């Protein structure tokens, strides 16, 4: 692969044996070889709990992206590796919990913004809200940005989860 300085954002989906240390192998590969991790999500995905699915969003040149896929494929407990960006189209979603504090006008405005983003109010007190918002990374970012003017205190994000569109499977 001829390399160019242009950096691309890619979403990898990885099915692994749900065994001790497997996540360390995957992220150790990224840190050891100097690859970026923008987002990372992992959880068991079959009913028996034998397999986990790891989603990693990374940024790199075309050559690095190809290397990441080949290097992941080399790890012994890895079943499948898919580059959802290359093999797309894919749906990508993440979830964030956003805590804001304030009173009166600020609270009203926060609720209005939340409604516009279809964010759910999952906790309310006299002077705080926790909103749950899901969507593409850009939407989450936009929501957090607006909330930063409205008493933003804390944010937690799950990172991206992604699947192929249509009938296609990993």
């Amino acid at each position, binding site marked *: *692969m*001829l390399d160019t300085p242009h950096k691309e954002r890619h979403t990898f989906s990885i099915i*692994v*044996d749900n065994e*001790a*240390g497997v996540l*360390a*192998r995957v992220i*150790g590969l990224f840190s*050891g070889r100097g690859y970026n991790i923008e987002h990372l999500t992992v959880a068991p995905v079959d009913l028996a709990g034998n397999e986990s699915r790891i989603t990693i969003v990374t940024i790199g040149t075309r*050559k690095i992206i*190809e*290397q990441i896929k*080949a*290097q992941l*494929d*080399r790890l*012994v*407990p*890895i*079943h499948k590796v898919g580059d959802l960006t290359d093999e797309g189209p894919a749906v990508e979603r993440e979830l964030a919990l956003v805590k804001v504090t304030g009173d009166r006008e600020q609270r009203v405005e926060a609720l209005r913004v939340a409604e516009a983003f279809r964010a759910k109010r999952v906790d309310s007190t006299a002077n705080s809200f926790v909103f749950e918002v899901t969507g593409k990374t850009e939407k989450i970012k936009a929501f957090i940005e607006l909330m930063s003017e409205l008493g933003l205190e804390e944010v937690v994000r799950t990172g991206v989860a992604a699947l192929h569109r249509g009938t296609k499977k990993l």
Partner: protein
Amino acid sequence: MSSKALSGAKIIVKALEDLGVDVIFGYPGGAVLPIYDELHEHSKITHVLVRHEQAAVHAAEGYARSTGKPGCVLVTSGPGATNAITGLADAMLDSIPVVCLTGQVPVQLIGTDAFQEADTVGISRHCTKHNYLVRKTDDVSRVVHEAFHVATTGRPGPVVVDIPKDVQITTSEQIHKGPIEHRSYRPAFKGDEEAIRKAVELLATAKKPIFYTGGGIINSGPKASDLLRKLVRLTGAPITSTLMGLGAYPASDKQWLGMLGMHGTYEANHAMHDCDVMVCVGARFDDRITGRIDAFSPNSKKIHIDIDRSSIDKIVHVDAPVVGDAGEVLEVFLKLWKKGKHKFDEAALASWWDDINEDRKRNCLAYPHRDDVIMPQYACERLQALTKGKDVYFTTEVGQHQMWAAQFLEFEEPNRWMTSGGLGTMGYGFPAAIGVQMGHPKATVIDVAGEASIQMNIQELSTAMQYGLPVKIFILNNEYMGMVRQWQDLNHDGRYSNSYTASLPDFVKLAESYGATGIMVDKPGDLDDAIIQMMETDGPVIVDCRVEKLANCFPMIPSGAAHNEMILPNEDEIKEFEGGAALV
């Protein structure tokens, strides 16, 4: 406890027997005592007690590399495991199949900072192909079998099996039988025939072809070397090889150009630079091979046959990749080449050989002959001449002596040359020689060493004496870490910071103190006698061969330079390349 139940330790040793392990290199300690108890006076498995765990892994590497069988190591928890790490990293970079069993503190104590506890799977994760922590005795048999499967298939490498002491003591009836059916591990083996056909057709268009081969041929087994010889002779193309691949193609053959790379021959590197189609088999475009990457073989199409998908396109762009075992792919390659009745353009090939033969006239390995002092190159040349045709295996340490050995020793067969290529581990050669000697009791095994490297695992003389292993250590003693000093010449204005070893031991007395034989030689006229005496002496020998102190190893592609910017021996002025001091 049912009558069929065995302790974890018994299960481990039974698995090793079933896998055909006949030699284990190791060192006991608290967390592996149950396994050592099973090995006590064992009828089929010989345990070689080393003096440092790093040496156990290097010995296993030497054994593996020279026999084609996996090497096996047994060490205790904590310091036993951490001492083995350098050896494991070495085996990782050179793709050597080694299984290292490590003891671990009992399961209940893991994570409590117990005595001699280390996170062995955590520490070894980055320098092994795979590793396991076995938490249940029921899993022991399967995991040991799986470890050997993973270590020896696909691109070979080291595998660690970490076994807590209680797991070695409790019993189980679970004994693995039959082939490994791994849930996710699917190593490449056969190459895609269509991909091979494309590669064959690309090669057939060449006017200036070259074969560039590496350790992958050796790892694949003797069949791969045999097929390579057939293919290269049939096509009539020139061939060069990496340090790791020496012996796959006979050095005496007229198509052989010698080693390529940083200290490779002028003709090999120039042919690589000027070729129009390159066939890389089982090599990985390492930085020691390519020189400056943007100037590497700029006008060639590249065929790359490698068992590891991630090696392809990692460093250079490949036009015709084939993922598969070198032997398997070469078999099909040869078949398709014959079937297609392919042949190079004869006139073009003849003119290509004319160019190469012109480059050969540069006599790039020439060195000044001296009567007053032994030149290190001369020592290697005499070593070659006096061992030629004998059943001899060579290992090396790391540095100038290693490169001179690679340049001047001539290998006709694979598996005869053991050296630390990827990691460049000083202290590799002597324990590796011990491993080779265990695999080939009747052969002569010679470690070409430097006086600095040999001291990194000199304690293994005790091991060699204990097991009656007549390993020969041939030290090119120049009192400097020669390669470090050479680089200081090149990039640091000759300021020899810490590269001179004051107060070296008297190597003759050192050998004698272990009960071995020591020979000192410092005159060119006495050299042959010293080598002959070394060869004829029973038991381990150290030859302290005092050589010219300031000789540099040429030819050389300095870091950051291109293949056609080599420094030759007759150019005494060492050119400095831009940014050279920052390169490795």
